[in-house]
């Protein structure tokens, strides 16, 4: 007895195949078809069997790893809003509020992003690549919750087209597409992604917020020399910030999933932390008391986008360094650069985005340097003959 879903696919397939009425939607149909069932393609070359892991599985593993910060983000969005406006909301109401507010962001991210992906795949005659399943999930999580949807749509379109498709699609890109979306907002609409009020839903144009509530992120507070929330509070993540980046504990859960499944490199995560601590401790040792440089290095790990960036963005296998030694250098540089930017760039304290994008750019050079000795070994062997 054949499965009804497979039956349905077989029934409508001719419409989308060559010569069918909707053959111009061929790639789109194929994307849904292979989504529903692993296709019946068989091996053609010398390797007669293949491992059962494919890119869909890898990508879905990353999405699963993103769920802890996603769930926490929903609650935190509601909680921050309630605190700002002095509302006495229960747990589920906060979660519902967060869900209600973030849903449009996810819808816009996926509809715009996948729309472009499908269209490009169709024009090129390629299969649709799964990469955007992850990018589309990450983008809303690193944006302020109050971002206007049209700006989000624009940044997604920019990231997908100029970050990915012009290079040839997933696997060919130089920069992490999700970060590129954020960088686009940062440079094109700076007012949207800076300031104190944007991190809490409804605060920007609010009239009814409780007196004295600023909504500033801990990073901004600390940089101004103010009293940042406690380490524990920042670790738990009940603080203002982008939707998914606040809770270090939820991100660590995700990191555990990524490391356990082997999808993301623990070397990059660890070396990023080491890099940040190295610069942080150095600054602590040298800085005069009271300055931001004297702010405890360990706190930097739980502030702003550091943890989220180290776990989910720096480890992007396409834009990171590809060699094992290179990963250590790449991660260390990201961590170090992030803290340097935070300490010495008064205009924009959140250094993680720029640090990762810069190291994305440098990753091929790092790999080049790592591979050089291998090449030289070979040349030396040839010369000594």
């Amino acid at each position: 007895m054949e499965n009804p879903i497979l039956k349905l696919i077989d029934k409508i397939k001719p419409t989308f195949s060559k010569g069918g009425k909707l053959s111009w939607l061929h790639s789109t149909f194929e994307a849904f078809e292979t989504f529903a069932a692993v296709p019946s393609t068989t091996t053609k070359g010398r390797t007669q069997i293949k491992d059962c892991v494919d890119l869909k599985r890898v990508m879905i593993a990353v999405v699963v790893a993103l769920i802890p910060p996603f769930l926490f983000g929903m609650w935190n969005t509601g909680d921050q809003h309630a605190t700002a406006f002095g509302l006495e909301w229960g747990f589920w109401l906060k979660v519902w509020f967060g869900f209600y507010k973030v849903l449009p962001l996810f819808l816009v991210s996926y509809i715009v992003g996948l729309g472009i992906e499908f269209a490009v795949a169709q024009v090129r005659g390629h299969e649709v690549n799964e990469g955007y399943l992850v990018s589309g999930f990450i983008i809303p999580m690193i944006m302020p919750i109050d971002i206007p949807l049209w700006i989000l749509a624009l940044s997604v379109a920019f990231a997908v087209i100029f970050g990915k498709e012009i290079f040839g699609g997933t696997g060919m890109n130089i920069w992490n597409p999700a970060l590129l979306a954020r960088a686009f907002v940062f440079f094109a609409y700076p007012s949207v992604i800076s300031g104190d009020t944007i991190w809490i839903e409804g605060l920007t144009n609010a009239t009814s917020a409780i007196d004295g509530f600023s909504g500033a992120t801990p990073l901004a507070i600390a940089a101004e020399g103010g009293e940042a929330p406690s380490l524990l509070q920042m670790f738990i993540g009940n603080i203002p910030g982008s939707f998914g980046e606040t809770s270090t504990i939820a991100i660590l859960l995700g990191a555990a999933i990524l490391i356990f499944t082997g999808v993301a490199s623990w070397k990059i995560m660890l070396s990023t932390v080491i890099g940040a601590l190295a610069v942080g401790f150095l600054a602590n040792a040298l800085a005069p008391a009271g300055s931001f440089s004297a702010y405890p290095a360990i706190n930097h790990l739980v502030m702003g986008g550091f943890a989220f960036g180290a776990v989910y963005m720096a480890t992007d296998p396409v834009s990171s360094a590809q060699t094992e030694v290179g990963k250590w250098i790449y991660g260390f540089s990201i961590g170090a650069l992030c803290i340097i930017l935070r300490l010495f760039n008064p205009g924009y304290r959140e250094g993680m985005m720029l640090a990762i994008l810069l190291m994305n750019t440098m990753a091929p050079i790092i790999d080049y340097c790592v591979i050089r000795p291998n090449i030289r070994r070979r040349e030396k062997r040839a010369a000594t003959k």
Partner: protein
Amino acid sequence: METIRLKKGLDLKIKGEATKKVLTTISPKVIALQPSNYKGVFPKLHVQEGDTVKAGQIIFSDKKREQICFTSPISGTIKAIVRGEKRKLLAIEIAPDGKNDYLTFEPISEVSKANRDEIQKRLLESGLWAGIIQRPYGIIANPTDTPKGIFISSFNTAPLAADLNFTTKDEVDAIQIAVDALCKFTDKIYVNVKADAPASPLSRLKNVVFTAFKGAHPAGNVGVQISHIAPIGKGDIVWTISPMTLIAMGKLFSKGIYDTQRLVAVTGQRVKEPAYVKCLPGTSIQSICEAFEIEKEVEICGQECGIRYISGNVLSGEDVGENGYLNFYDDQITLISEGNYRELFGWAKIFRPKKFSLSHTYFSWLTPKKKYKVDSNTNGGERPFVVNGVYEKVLPMDIYPVYLLKAILAQDIEKMEQLGIYEVIGEDLALCEYVCPSKINIQEIVENGINLMLKEMA
């Protein structure tokens, strides 16, 4: 003896291992010589349909290197000359006459006293020269070369591979004769044995250098072994020979006949009781399968799945089809299921207990001893390189595989040289292709690279 420990690699646990008994000797209805078995050879035919031939009689030779010829493994009549598109020579089918008439070559009673020319002449005229493979490129060796060394792997780690300890156990004398003869071509003959395993019969050989290897597949691949003993650089030439060919060489020198009869492991989950048979290369798969009970009807996910007939192993063998033949260099046949079924939401299932994956996104790593039934489904569509660090887990060589592959795709000869094209042939990267989540046909890319090198360096 030096022991080299390889940490990378993967032993695939697959159902259908051959039990160590020889079921029968196959007397085939038809035997075929297929020029496609020999990489880079352009065949020049020496026979016509209807000719009678003896075992050891020349059938075709290489247009570019005329002295290398390919001879009939059996006596009989030329039944058909099969040609494909553009009259490409596909196969020469021979109907055996059942008499086993051998063309006799003059035996060499004491090979250690013979000179290189004499031995070379005998190998070339008998057709056994085709068993000597040159690295780089994995083509048949040049008779004019003097190799830096000759490498012999005494064990095969590929999935379900024939146990060479079993297949060579009575043939050490023949192998010793062959080794003594090959000493005339080079200073060093390396025999690589498996560490911590029952001693190989080949470990009794004399006048050779032993190296022990420890580790999972591809530790038994001679290419991997060479890269750890004496990596091949630009201008280097080494030769490799399988124990199977050595046995035939021994018989050639001692008895003066071309006898390539070998023990072949018939394996795979579609064979009900996998075991060994004795047969000649070129024997039709059908006549081998007749000796076994084959599982005809198998359903996967409720869909009927046919049989894939592979000459060789599942990682680097050839899908020859039901009407195919045992390839010249193979001592194994594997019958697995065709994977032309669809699995609903297969990639999204939390558990897929019937499938193996090296990736921890599935949970097969929790049951490391479990043996799996395998099929030819690709388990996903082809994508560009995305995930990194996966190939490196299964490639115990000092090579950056992705960079080498990209250099090949870009047809950048200089880069290919720098990144180690001379050190590999397709089978060395077979496991990389197996584990690739992007389903890239890596062996094909490597072979294309080698063909490009052959063309450019000629």
